[in-house]
């Protein structure tokens, strides 16, 4: 059942009404008296719709989305694993969803305890000395982390100027560095897909504030020289930032702190199953070793004799990065998930994520160009089709996946792999699903040779065909305009 659906504004009709609010039970206040004339708005051309209209509109819109609950969603670096329903149930408890951040601490002990114990669990999983759950997403966690690096250097007397970032890095890394006032210096990748150690050696100096590495990196490869890299950086007084978006691969396998990485952000909405929601709310965590611990944003939660309290008494803190304590209801989800899995489950998650990644790699390598022929971690990156076909691009391969019932994998990222096709299966996909996906990708590779138009015309089974993105950017239409009166 799939319907085209107009804008909610186009469903509007004057005088129709959906809302249901109480009649006032207090004396009327004349708007004219309470608010001066120039402060009162004239019109507000919002949609007028009945409750049923609204429910139908958004139900129909929803059915124009693909989601994890439809099928395989192998976006690389996104960890589209199953988002357990029990997490939504616990996050929806009124004892969590209806608490106010300014309530007296005595009335929110359950919430503070949850934050405290989630932090502890994250510290156990990552090996760090402390962490903050204040970041609202991964990039926000990066900002938090790099600001702490900066604070450390400032404390040492010099904020320094440069941030070294591999050419395979996610765009948020250089963007974050820039926001914190650092110049990004790109370090190239080696033939093995990891940091080129010679190039790195040549870049490191006393003006380098730090490195931002992704572990495993965005090629799905573990930086085998990571310990050495950290040592080299520390030798010049630089710090090493770990983008932990790919932490799913490392669960139970290694604690990033043990590798010498000074600071790490996690995407709870990847590794710890809080849903992506079509682009958030996410939830970040920024974890630090002892060096950076003083700079964590305020507040934290501390425990004393079984009682929990907000802790603002952190003189070297970078300050606040969010109005309150981040996306708490997603912290409830992540906590539910971690308590469900326990240590053993966490380790299994990582192990099977890597198993699935390597299985895909091996089964697809005859048809797709394996860029780095080595064991991968939780994801694998191909440089498009192995046997190139006239005029067929990776985008066409990706769009054709739709007609086979799958969400496309990530394409054209990392930037250093031409025609990149980046596939992350996650541990919650079973072998049957992987096999179906493999069969589809092999069939598509075949089609690329025999019937390439099938790829170029794809998708044909989605609610819309390929869209004109050029015009969208050139002549942006970004909002509905009320008809002129």
């Amino acid at each position, binding site marked *: 059942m799939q319907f085209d659906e107009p804008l909610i504004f186009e469903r509007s009709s004057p005088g129709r009404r959906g809302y249901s609010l109480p009649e006032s*039970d207090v004396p009327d206040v004349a708007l004219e008296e309470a608010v001066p004339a120039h402060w009162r708005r004239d019109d507000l051309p919002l949609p007028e719709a009945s409750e049923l209209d609204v429910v139908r509109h958004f139900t129909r819109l929803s059915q124009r989305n693909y989601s994890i609950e439809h099928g395989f969603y192998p976006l690389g670096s996104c960890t589209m694993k199953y988002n357990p329903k029990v997490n939504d149930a616990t996050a929806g408890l009124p004892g969590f969803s209806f608490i106010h951040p300014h309530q007296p601490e005595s009335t929110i002990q359950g919430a503070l305890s949850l934050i405290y114990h989630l932090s502890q669990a994250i510290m156990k999983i990552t090996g760090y000395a402390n962490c903050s759950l204040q970041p609202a997403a991964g990039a926000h966690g990066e900002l938090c982390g790099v600001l702490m690096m900066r604070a450390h250097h400032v404390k040492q007397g010099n904020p320094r100027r440069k941030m070294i970032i591999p050419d395979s890095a996610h765009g948020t890394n250089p*963007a974050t560095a820039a926001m914190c006032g650092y110049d990004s210096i790109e370090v190239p990748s080696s033939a093995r897909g990891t940091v080129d150690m010679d190039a790195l050696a040549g870049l490191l100096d006393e003006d380098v504030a730090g490195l931002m590495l992704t572990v495993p990196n965005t090629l799905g490869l573990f930086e085998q020289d990571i310990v050495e890299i950290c040592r080299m950086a520390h030798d010049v007084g630089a710090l090493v930032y770990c983008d932990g978006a790919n932490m799913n691969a490392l669960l139970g396998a*290694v604690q990033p702190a043990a590798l010498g990485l000074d600071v790490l952000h996690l995407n709870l909405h990847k590794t710890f199953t809080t849903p992506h929601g079509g*682009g958030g709310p996410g939830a970040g965590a920024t974890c630090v070793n002892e060096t950076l611990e003083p700079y964590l944003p305020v507040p934290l939660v501390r425990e004393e004799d079984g009682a929990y309290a907000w802790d603002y008494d952190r003189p070297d803190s970078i300050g606040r990065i969010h109005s309150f304590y981040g996306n*708490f209801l997603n912290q409830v989800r992540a906590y539910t998930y971690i308590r469900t899995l326990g240590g053993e489950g966490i380790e299994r998650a990582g192990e099977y994520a890597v198993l699935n990644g390597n299985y895909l790699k091996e089964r697809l390598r005859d048809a797709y160009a394996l860029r780095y022929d080595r064991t991968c971690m939780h994801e694998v990156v191909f440089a498009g089709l192995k046997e190139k076909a006239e005029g067929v691009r990776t985008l066409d391969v990706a769009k054709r996946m739709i007609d086979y019932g799958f969400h496309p994998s990530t394409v054209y990222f990392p930037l250093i792999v031409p025609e990149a096709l980046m596939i992350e299966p996650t541990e919650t996909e079973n072998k049957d699903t992987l096999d179906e996906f493999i069969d589809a990708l092999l069939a598509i590779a075949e089609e690329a040779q025999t019937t390439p138009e099938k790829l170029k015309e794809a998708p044909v089974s989605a609610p*819309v065909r390929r869209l004109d993105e050029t015009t969208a950017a050139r002549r942006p239409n970004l909002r509905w305009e009320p008809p002129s009166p």
Partner: protein
Amino acid sequence: MDYVPHSSADREAMLRAIGVARAADLFHDIPADVRHPQLDLPPGLSEPEVIRHLNELAQQNQNVQSLPSFLGAGCYNHFIPSIVNALILRGEFLTSYTPYQPELSQGTLQAMYEFQSMVCLLTGMDVANASMYDEATATAEAALTACSVTKRAKIVAPDTFNPTTLDVLETYAEGREVTLERVPAFTIADDGALRDNWDAVAAAIDGETACVVVQVPNFFGWVHECQELAETVHAHGALLVVSADPVSLGILTPPGEYGADVVTGEGHGLALPPGLGGPRLGLYATRKKYLRQMPGRVSGMTKDIEGKRGFVMTLQAREQHIRREKATSNICTNEALAALAFTINVSWLGPAGMRKKAELCLAKSHYAAAQIDALPGFAVSTPGPYIKEFVARCPAPVDAVNAHLLEHGVLGGYDLGNVRPELDRHMLVCVTELNTREDIDRLVAALREFAN
């Protein structure tokens, strides 16, 4: 319990296909000495156990449904209709990624477009993005964008602005050569009464000023005059950033009409319950001329190859995944589902519901203010029009008053002593459409008892 679906036969078959004997062999790139540490976590729980545990934690909290609450100060208990949860929890919305593949994301993309439209209409601006983390980060990004646009480094903000937002702004500004000047925009009389000192803001503007950020209504609940200020700002070549409560925009003049260049705001009150302050929903709208400096995701309407209407994420050249270190911001994941909740709720409210909600806040807060003002030892002190929050001076420190209220089953207002020590007897009282007269009378009775 975990969510790994592999039977041992599957596992074996897969290991065979890969050509390794054990899964452990896949981890050989990790230095052996730190590989596979023992994780010192409590053992896993089954679903009934974890539900029981979380129920227990939840029950250790009081909440604004179980006790009447007069807390606001940046986080509000507005009514969110049941349809919002029913719709946003649909897996299609909840478990999809950022809409990178538009053909499979038309639902999210169209909702984003509708959200942008609503934010524009509410604020009176030309364009809006599809959300920021919260009002604080939205305002911080707006102020820093103003610095880039004007190539100036001074940000002026009245101290009637939400202090947390200003703190966040300072954190965000840390890496830049930018300063924030907090202007005393009110005074405290000897009797504790607050007085508007708004002219000081205009006076602080100079040729170095990149922008002035003001909040409407301000942190204390009242509305400052902005028309004239806007003229002064613009006369100095600076930008006016207005952080507006979208609930108040049900009745208040949209900032676009009095000269705002960027409007930010906190949208959670029209989208999600308080949730200890998160998730929230940062609003960000601006004028067309600043479109290419705007941070965040934007959905645009276009056509598919058959000419059918469709939506895509557009103007991505502003964003980190294309522009990298030159991006307008590092923001990536935003608050899409909260924006969807907002879009659903505002569709449901419509213009009449938006106005009704604001009017209920107005009537109820004024009723509460009148009652409290009449109490011995208490006085309401809000030197300007207000919609839902006002300041009440108390005969004792607010924390003592609040302790008394809690004993009487009421969550009292926000203690302004947290903002400034000399305001430790000033309570910021918030009254929304969800506070019944009975709630208010209960508050007033408990305050009266305290006074006696």
